[in-house]
């Protein structure tokens, strides 16, 4: 028994190298199934994080304003948020979130027409709102009037919406807030197709010095799934009970819908492809086991028990399945990473959980591919098999 047990590995090794072409074909089939399963499952597992990253394109998904925002001042200026709101919001929203303070007011142009002015951290606002289209504008000849009339406040750099710029005319202009003038210079215009086109953006501290208003809204971009965003909103409401924390429903609802449909679509594709490839590989492996019916018959004729012959066949398949898994996992992880680079411009890291799933799939395919033909061979007599029946 001991002797035959030590003989088995040699027998398996001989069997595998005896017909290298056939072994290579079986190994290739099992490598294909492991590659496909690894690549698609890795992409599927990382889909949520990739999509959530993509949804950042839409900008802020939560807005915080002072409670009772509808009671505006006579000039339409929204109520201020408390001083600690920015820090509290940053802490509650989490380190991955982007929090940008805004202060809005209604100023007058020299013609007396109203215009919305917004104080903000312009760089952070641009970073959050990647859909903002910024155009550099050609430098205009110096308008000494605007500069000299600006008085002590100075010439403030501004980002003007395209409609606002059209209404203001020059790159240098003056606006009035509560009768207080402020001179601006703009070297860039902003185009969004929204209300931003009609506004003039300036640094928050300059806005506060000019209007006396420090901060009226916080726009927050919270990354993550709809559930993670809802959890962050709950934390924000707890941290800022005196403020109104409003999710931008259209973004959160649409994100959940699009992410869930994409996930379902990819999962359906993964299952469909894996199933198809598995059946193809199964058919191919099954045929190759049937092809070895003479080996089976010779071993039986020489006195090997059915269990031992089957063990030999199964051990071979397990070895090939694991070797196929090794190659397929490496290849599949590479393909998943390539898909990530091509499509999302970020890499997709290999996942050990996927290796476990691919191993189960490969072993299942291999064992089914061996067991079904073996069951068929078991019903035949060695003599009739050797006679070619």
């Amino acid at each position: 028994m001991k002797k035959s047990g030590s003989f088995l590995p040699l027998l398996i090794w001989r069997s595998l190298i005896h017909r290298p072409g056939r072994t290579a074909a079986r190994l290739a089939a099992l490598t294909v199934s492991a590659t496909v399963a690894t690549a698609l499952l890795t992409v599927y597992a990382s889909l949520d994080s990739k999509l959530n990253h993509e949804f950042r394109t839409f900008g802020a998904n939560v807005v915080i304003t002072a409670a009772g925002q509808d009671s505006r001042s006579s000039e339409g200026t929204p109520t201020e948020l408390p001083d600690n709101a920015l820090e509290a919001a940053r802490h509650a929203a989490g380190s991955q979130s982007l929090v940008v303070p805004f202060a809005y007011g209604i100023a007058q142009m020299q013609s007396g027409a109203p215009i919305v002015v917004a104080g903000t951290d312009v760089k952070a606002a641009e970073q959050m709102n990647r859909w903002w289209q910024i155009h550099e504008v050609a430098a205009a000849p110096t308008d000494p009037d605007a500069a000299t009339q600006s008085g002590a406040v100075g010439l403030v750099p501004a980002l003007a919406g395209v409609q606002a710029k059209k209404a203001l005319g020059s790159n240098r202009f003056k606006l009035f807030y509560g009768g207080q003038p402020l001179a601006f210079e703009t070297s860039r215009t902003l185009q969004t197709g929204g209300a931003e086109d009609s506004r003039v953006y300036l640094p928050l501290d300059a806005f506060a010095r000019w209007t006396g208003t420090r901060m009226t809204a916080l726009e927050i971009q919270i990354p993550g799934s709809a559930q993670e965003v809802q959890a962050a909103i709950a934390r924000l409401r707890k941290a800022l009970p005196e403020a109104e924390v409003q999710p931008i429903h259209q973004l959160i609802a649409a994100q959940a819908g699009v992410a869930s449909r994409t996930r379902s679509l990819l999962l359906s594709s993964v299952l469909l492809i894996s199933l198809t490839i598995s059946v193809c590989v199964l058919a191919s492996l099954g045929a190759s086991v049937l092809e070895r019916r003479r080996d089976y018959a010779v071993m039986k004729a020489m006195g090997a028990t059915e269990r031992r012959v089957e063990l030999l066949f199964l051990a071979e398949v397990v070895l090939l399945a694991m070797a196929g898994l090794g190659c397929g996992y490496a290849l599949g992880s590479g393909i998943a990473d390539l898909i990530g680079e091509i499509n999302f411009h970020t890499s997709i890291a290999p996942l050990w959980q996927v290796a476990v799933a691919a191993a189960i799939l490969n072993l299942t395919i291999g064992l089914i591919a061996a067991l079904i033909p073996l069951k068929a061979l078991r019903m035949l007599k060695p003599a009739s098999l050797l006679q070619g029946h």
Partner: protein
Amino acid sequence: MFLRLIYESFLRQKRRKLLAGAAILLGATAVTAMLTIGVSVGNKMSREMKAYGANIVVAPAADALDVEVGGVPLRPAHSGEYLKQSDLAKIKQIFWHNNIENISPELPLTAQIEIGQTIRQVPVVGYWFHHALDVGGESYTVGAIGLHPWWRLDGTWPRDGSRSEIAIGETLARRLQLQKGDRIEVEQTPVTISGIVSGGNAANRTLLVPLALAQQWLHRPGAVRRVYVSALTKPEDALGRSNPATLSPKMRERWYCSAYPNSIAYQIQQALPHSRAEQIRRIAQGEGKILSHISGLMWLVALAALVASGLAVAASMATAIAERHQEIGLMRALGASHGAIAGLFFTEVTLLAAAATIPGYFLGSFVADQVSQRIFGSGSGVIPALLPLTLLLIIGVSLIGGTPSILRAARTEPASVLRASV
């Protein structure tokens, strides 16, 4: 003789042919299903992204600046220019009319509301809620409800022609202590609150009234301030971002005939006199980016399916041919030339691949349709153009897979094969 050999081969080797055919059929199913999903995912996802709202806005060309903060208009009610309501049907007559999914005009104003003895100024927006727009004898349902799927309503929407029903945003209702069913006077018109709207950030703080009623209060019959359009668009590329005025006539035509947000906006602007149409970049750009990545992902997965199916089909063909080495030896012993044997096998492979691909194509179309129906609520149907493509691909990979075995078989020495089988 050649045809008879092929006929006999199919007749006498049913098991082998069925096994190889099954592998090809499954490969063709996966390829067809993935190609169908890849082709239809763009439109399906684009429709799904309509949940983000309008992606094009139309305003009067000579309009004054928007004065609004947090979506609440602060401009004096009677200032600015207007568009004509009667022109809106023209939006559904542009070159890309089939891509126009929804049209929602708005007319904002500030109205006096009388509750008991108190008079207040409140923001009001006039909408088409669920409007039947007649265009060239056909009727399309358009309006704000379809454009704002995130709005939630407690009650019923005001009827579009009604002069006595309004809806109110929940924040405003809470502030004014109003409830569904309350009767109030707005601009000296008695109205009933038919529903309370929540979920819309700006809509929460306004009265939502039928467009005709807003026009009546503003004394501007047939006027609208802005029109929001939801259009199916393709993601912007370098051409999409171009200024049409700077393009050559040929490129300009290509730009015009592509469903870019800018080209659709341009056509709307041409159709509506004295208007300015532009993409809402927050929605259009976000949609475009996500859409291109999801479509790209599905195409890459389809490509992976194609390669994997190709390898599986090729492996099946190689196995099927390798199994027949004795038969090949016998044919060679009987005087068949290398070319005749190779020709016979190539013909067999082609016929088998074609015969298995056709049912695989229909099965794949059915699978894709079911997946699409389940995920998007609408099927993908059968795409006839994919049949020749799938046929070509599957026959191609079958031949590629079978070729090494066929060539090896054709070179076989008959004596060695026949001796080995004894």
